[in-house]
């Protein structure tokens, strides 16, 4: 892999979403040698997916938020940062060596500081039948829309909760896509619980956008509220969606597509694999890296910015990216950054306002996080909730022993789609807390790479001695 200019960088940033773009731009502008890596074909991450390539060139289609990304991208382009797309980071070790796979070859790069900005992923939504072809995440549909101009054209149900669900429904409809039914799983009473926090929220632009979004979707889609049970049914592919509401009403609809979404959670695999400590967030119901004010993890020199640090949205992600980059540079002794750091901190404080409200309002209900019966939990290894409960009965006290018994989390996704469910399910089955249960121990490679990529890396004599004996 000769595309890189160097083997050594002041700062390596992983992930070219808002946080990574902001971090790389800030660092490079301040004179640091900076490398930004992302596994997708183009920059933008989730919010700005397809920023440079979307077929939706009519600016109204994706809205101002989307095109704001171009301003940040401009800053990145003029900053002098080196950017490599389709580059997957599969390893970061405590000495800040970064394993990068690109175009079928791998290379190890030495960083002086690292910002992990790998963002969020959608929370697992383990309902009966969620592995059937035709069941996808709402985010998947959004990705298809932004990067390929593809919208659902057959009978479609969208289900779940959270601001993104509504935003996505709105985007699909505006683009002429089809949504027949929305199953809203927000628990009864959740809104009331969140109201006291509304003040912080009201002063952010979220609120105005939120209302408009709700109105738009409500006028076009049949909305079923307080849904307490959803099942995807079909033989080899989705044929119908069946549901039940808090009032005991049942319903069903023949459909080709079911889009699921109940919020996003930090994608912590890479950060965890470095050994950085993570804590359970009882409000957002997920793991978060333990960070200092500037976003530095418990592994010196490794920072986490963006949604990977805790869900905050674009504004927070941009601010966190700049804070982390500037703090990293300050620690490297690059002068003249302090003023900027405090400005970035102020930007972050402002962006953070209103978040707690959304978290309370959209806390997903237990039955959609902790499945019963033989619902599949681990999609890759096809392990069911009932298998996990029996493993707890014979003595599995946490995810790692569970892995040994059942192979949960050992498939190609490496626990990304089952990890949270496993932690919460085991906590409930054992009558303890998610902290007590813990998470899978993750190690490099966090993404698969070919054996030859691994074998082609430089040989160290001391490593040869450890193997050839």
């Amino acid at each position, binding site marked *: 892999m000769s595309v890189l200019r160097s083997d050594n960088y002041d700062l390596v940033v992983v992930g070219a979403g808002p946080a990574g773009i902001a971090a790389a731009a800030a660092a490079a502008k301040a004179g640091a040698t900076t490398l930004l890596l992302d596994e997708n074909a183009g920059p933008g991450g989730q919010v700005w997916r397809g920023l440079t390539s979307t077929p939706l060139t009519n600016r109204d289609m994706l809205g101002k938020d989307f095109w704001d990304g171009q301003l940040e991208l401009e800053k990145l382009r003029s900053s002098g940062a080196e950017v490599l797309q389709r580059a997957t980071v599969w390893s970061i070790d405590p000495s800040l060596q970064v394993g990068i796979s690109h175009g079928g070859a791998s290379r190890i790069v030495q960083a002086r500081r690292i910002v992990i900005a790998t963002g969020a992923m959608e929370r697992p939504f383990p309902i009966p039948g969620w*592995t059937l*072809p035709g069941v*996808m*995440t709402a985010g998947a549909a959004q990705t298809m829309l932004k*990067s*390929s*101009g593809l919208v659902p054209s*057959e009978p479609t149900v969208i289900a779940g909760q959270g601001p993104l669900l509504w935003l996505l429904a709105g985007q699909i409809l505006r683009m002429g896509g089809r949504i027949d039914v929305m199953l809203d799983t927000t628990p009864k009473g959740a809104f009331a619980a969140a109201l006291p926090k509304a003040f912080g929220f009201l002063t952010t632009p979220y609120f105005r956008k939120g209302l408009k979004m709700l109105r738009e979707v409500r006028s076009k889609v049949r909305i079923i509220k307080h849904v307490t049970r959803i099942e995807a049914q079909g033989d080899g592919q989705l044929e119908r969606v069946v549901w039940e509401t808090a009032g005991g009403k049942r319903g069903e609809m023949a459909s080709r597509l079911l889009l699921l979404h109940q919020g996003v959670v930090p994608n912590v695999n890479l950060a965890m694999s470095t050994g950085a400590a993570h804590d359970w967030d009882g409000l957002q119901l997920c793991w978060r890296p333990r960070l200092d004010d500037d976003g530095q993890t418990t592994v010196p020199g490794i920072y986490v910015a963006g949604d990977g640090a805790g869900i905050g949205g674009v504004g927070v992600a941009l601010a966190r990216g700049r804070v982390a980059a500037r703090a990293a540079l300050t620690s490297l002794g690059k002068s003249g950054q302090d003023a900027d750091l405090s400005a970035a901190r102020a930007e972050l404080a402002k962006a953070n306002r209103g978040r707690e409200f959304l978290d309370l309002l959209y806390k997903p209900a237990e039955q959609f996080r902790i499945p019963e019966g033989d619902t599949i939990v681990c999609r890759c290894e*096809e392990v069911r909730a009932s298998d996990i409960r029996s493993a707890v009965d014979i003595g599995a006290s946490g995810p790692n022993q569970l892995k040994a018994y059942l192979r949960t989390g050992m498939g190609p996704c490496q626990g990304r789609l089952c990890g949270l469910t496993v932690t919460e399910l085991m906590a409930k089955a054992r009558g303890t807390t998610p902290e007590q249960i813990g998470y899978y121990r993750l190690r490099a490679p966090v993404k*698969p790479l070919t054996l030859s990529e691994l074998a082609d890396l430089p040989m160290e004599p001391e490593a040869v001695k450890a193997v050839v004996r």
Partner: protein
Amino acid sequence: MTPMFSHIPADQRPTLEIFVDGQSVRARRGDTVSAALLASGLDVRRDSAVSGVPRLPYCMMGVCFECLVTIDGVGNRQGCLIPVAPGMRVEIQRGKRELGK
């Protein structure tokens, strides 16, 4: 089969030809392999490596590994992260990968 997804009329990108299990398919430049497959109207379900049940892409963002396909002879690649290229040969996977493929 009618595809679950259709291109919006505003999408005017040029098309290119790929082959899915030998069959010619028009894809739009810039699409990922998975997006092109889902828009093709073909039955592109793969069989899982564990029990052989049918699966389709789930997340389209690189985390779930449901989109695994054989591309130009190399198996188990994440179709949702790889853009289509002219003449690309895509094969739908049937169960476990074969060594050397």
